[in-house]
């Protein structure tokens, strides 16, 4: 069995009044191996965010299953879901979601504090990560005192500190300038090389071109997949662009 197994995922929203139904995901199946770096692409309304919410256990699917490392997300009790999320998943958001009232260090430590870990353990895990992400010198600073790139690196550190099974990144480069975006993508690649499984949702072909595999979602289904194989980043970028063009013009994949 694969590390992450998504099978026949279906999500139907019923509007509160009138009862008309909106099909966000109709049938999504894919799997990912441990240590993979996969990107999910798709237009607005294609169901990307719904998929990510379900993977993050923030939302429940109408049908189908998500199995992460042998655990069925649908079987986890409501009470334990937060703990599950905290211990197994790491999140990186487009708008960083750092708390203004904490300095970077405390922002990074937040999941550990919520998990009631000891101080020694916190310090032990914080320093190597901060070192790796190059934010060791700014740990005492507050989010409003540092740049966007630094904020996002702190957010990545926060996602990594619990050594999660899976990192879910939602448009991580969306709020960054191209330089910081490149730096961040380098960083994600490096983390992935260390064995971290990453799932990234993005609009940006540039960001997706760094992943090992790109999944395209259209109208609630996995429409196409591209594997990197031996391609360079540039070749990968080209492939993604072609696919996006096809998607937009509605052509068939040959």
């Amino acid at each position, binding site marked *: 069995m694969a590390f992450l197994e998504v099978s026949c995922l279906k999500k139907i929203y019923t509007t509160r009044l009138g009862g008309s139904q909106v099909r966000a995901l109709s049938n999504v199946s894919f799997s990912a191996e441990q240590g993979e770096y996969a990107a999910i692409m798709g237009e607005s309304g294609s169901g990307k965010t719904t998929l990510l919410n379900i993977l993050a256990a*923030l939302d429940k699917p109408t049908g189908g299953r998500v199995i992460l490392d042998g655990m069925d997300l649908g079987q986890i009790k409501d009470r334990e879901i937060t703990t599950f999320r905290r211990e197994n998943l790491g999140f990186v958001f487009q708008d960083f979601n750092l708390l203004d009232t904490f300095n970077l260090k405390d922002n990074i430590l937040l999941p550990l504090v*919520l998990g009631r870990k000891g101080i020694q353990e916190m310090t032990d895990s914080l320093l190597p990560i901060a070192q790796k992400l190059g934010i060791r010198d700014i740990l005492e600073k507050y989010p409003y005192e540092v740049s966007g790139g630094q904020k996002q690196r702190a957010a990545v550190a926060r996602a990594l500190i619990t050594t999660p099974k899976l990192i879910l990144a939602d448009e991580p480069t969306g709020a960054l300038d191209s330089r910081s975006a490149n730096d961040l993508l380098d960083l994600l690649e490096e983390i992935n090389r260390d064995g971290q499984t990453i799932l990234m949702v993005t609009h940006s072909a540039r960001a997706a071109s760094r992943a090992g595999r790109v999944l395209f979602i259209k109208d609630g289904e996995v429409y196409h997949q591209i594997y990197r194989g031996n391609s360079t980043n540039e070749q990968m970028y080209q492939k993604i662009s072609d696919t996006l063009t096809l998607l937009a013009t509605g052509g068939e994949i040959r």
Partner: protein
Amino acid sequence: MKYGFYTKLAFTNIRKNRRIYVPYVFTCILTVMMYYLVRSLSVNPGLKEMYGGYSIASTLRLGTFVIGVFALIFLFYTNSFLMKRRQKEFGVFNILGMEKKHLARMILTETVLVTVISLGLGLGSGILFDKVMFLLICKLVGAEISLGFFVSGGVILSTVKLFCGIYLIIYLRAVYTVQVNDPIELLRGSSTGEREPKTKGLLALAGAVCLGTGYGIAVTVKNPVASMGLFFVAVILVIIGTYLVFTAGSIVILKLLRRNRKFYYQPRHFISVSGMIYRMKQNAAGLANICILCTMVLVMLSSTTSLILGREDMIHGRYPNDFIIHSDRSVADQNERLFRRLEEICKEEGISTENKVEYSYLLFMAEQQGSWFETDEQKLHIERDFSKFCSLFFIPLSDYNAYSGEKQVLEGDETLLFSNYEPYEKPVLGVFDREYQISGYLEEFFGNGASDTNVITSYYLVVTDEEFGRLVEISSGNGEESCAEQVYYGFDTPVSSKRQEALEDRIMSEMSGGEYGDDFETHLETRVENRNDFMGIYGGLFFLGLFLGVLFIMAAVLIIYYKQISEGYEDRERFEIMQKVGMTQTEVKQTIRSQVLMVFFLPIVMAGIHIAFAFTIIKLLLAVIGMVNVKLYLLCTIAAFLVFAVLYVIIYSLTARTYYKIVRR
């Protein structure tokens, strides 16, 4: 655009923002009502016909002023909060093509709407309650007059004028904020990042010192006269201290907590402490204000309540008998004639008398210098240290024994001593040319009621009749002013106050009849007359205390409510992030509870501490006006605090619920 458009828009806006507008409009209505009520009571013609009506009217006029100022500050504050919340909305309107002048017109229409609603409903309910309140105050004072429904056009007009003025100021401010901000800034509203407050260790220390000194003064003060001046010093120190402790001290404490890693890195403390640091930056002054308001209200309520409830004690302390005559002792014959005549009058009226007291006394003002008492007026330095001042009463032994039924024996310069405040602990007491040996202390004394006996320390000395005679000679050679040679004559009667009043009138006419010669100086005091005056003064104070109390509670609570709601919107984002990062719903709830609890109860807990420390000094101040029943005052304080706390808890639970709803979304 048509006029109707703005009216419609204003209605829609208020309805859309009802969560913040309903409490605001409610506050406006209440404030208008309160103002109208106090103002109309103060000019009610019926008040002047009542006993002590004049003093009530003047206290109420003062109250009117206080409420007016308060209304301005409070409504201005609540509105500025409201507008801050709506900035984003204005930004959207602005971007959608409404010009600043259109926005101004929209705000104007809204303001007019609020003005009309609050004035209409406020005045309506004010007029309605007016009658109720007036009956209440009459009952309180015990006057038996009921007045017709009283509506004063002048008062309505001045209320309308005042509040229109207040709303105009509010409107101008709102327009100003819209005018100076560009659309993007409006859109962003209050979401710009706040900097962490600086640590001001020195100020925090100063605050602690102020508070400590204020408390120290309040606790250690012993003399009621000295306490008057010191009270204000203590109050000012405590006010300054409260501000500093809330603003600087709280930050210092929170940062110290944050530095304690064991404490800080626990889920609940982690979020509360860091959140509170920011919260205190914005709220410290407001919380300090609330704390001081609470303290004032509680002091006012507890002291006036204990005055009202303890009024009989006070009257009995000040007037040892129902009827009291102080007369010059030198005209012994006339005195004797008058007292016998009084007995006849009572018999004629069929009024029984009891507890008859008659004794002579000499009263000297003196300045205590160790065991020596200086009575020479030239050497008295009353302005220098009033607390050293005391009154010395000399009473002949025969009069004392006759009254008390005891058979005390004194010889030569021996004396029996009674002190109303500070115990006299030295074995001798020197005055004039003599040192009196204190042979015993009296447990109690029938009292004199001379007007200042309750303010400064009074020593009552029982001396032999020969010694008393010698003192009379000394005093007459000493000039008249610093001493008085008097006879006290008093009796009680069980009859109704109506009959007592009639008796008083009869005695007055008897005394002023000229039968006893022109130089005959007597002074009649009755409890029944003073009871009415007393209620006139303190009934009004009590009423005002209650009134302002309700107003301040309302204010304090609404300020906190607004604060919480406004922070709820800011905190929503934070809690969302925390939930995404792995905080459970229960943890969110707990954290919210502990944060709201802290903000809510910090002021009232602090107020409780203030009151506890102020207890001693207020007890002494009350003693100055004759209220010496400490137990009653203690009970009143506790009761006032509990009532306050219960109200507070109710509002707290409402606020916490609304806050949680906002945060959870």
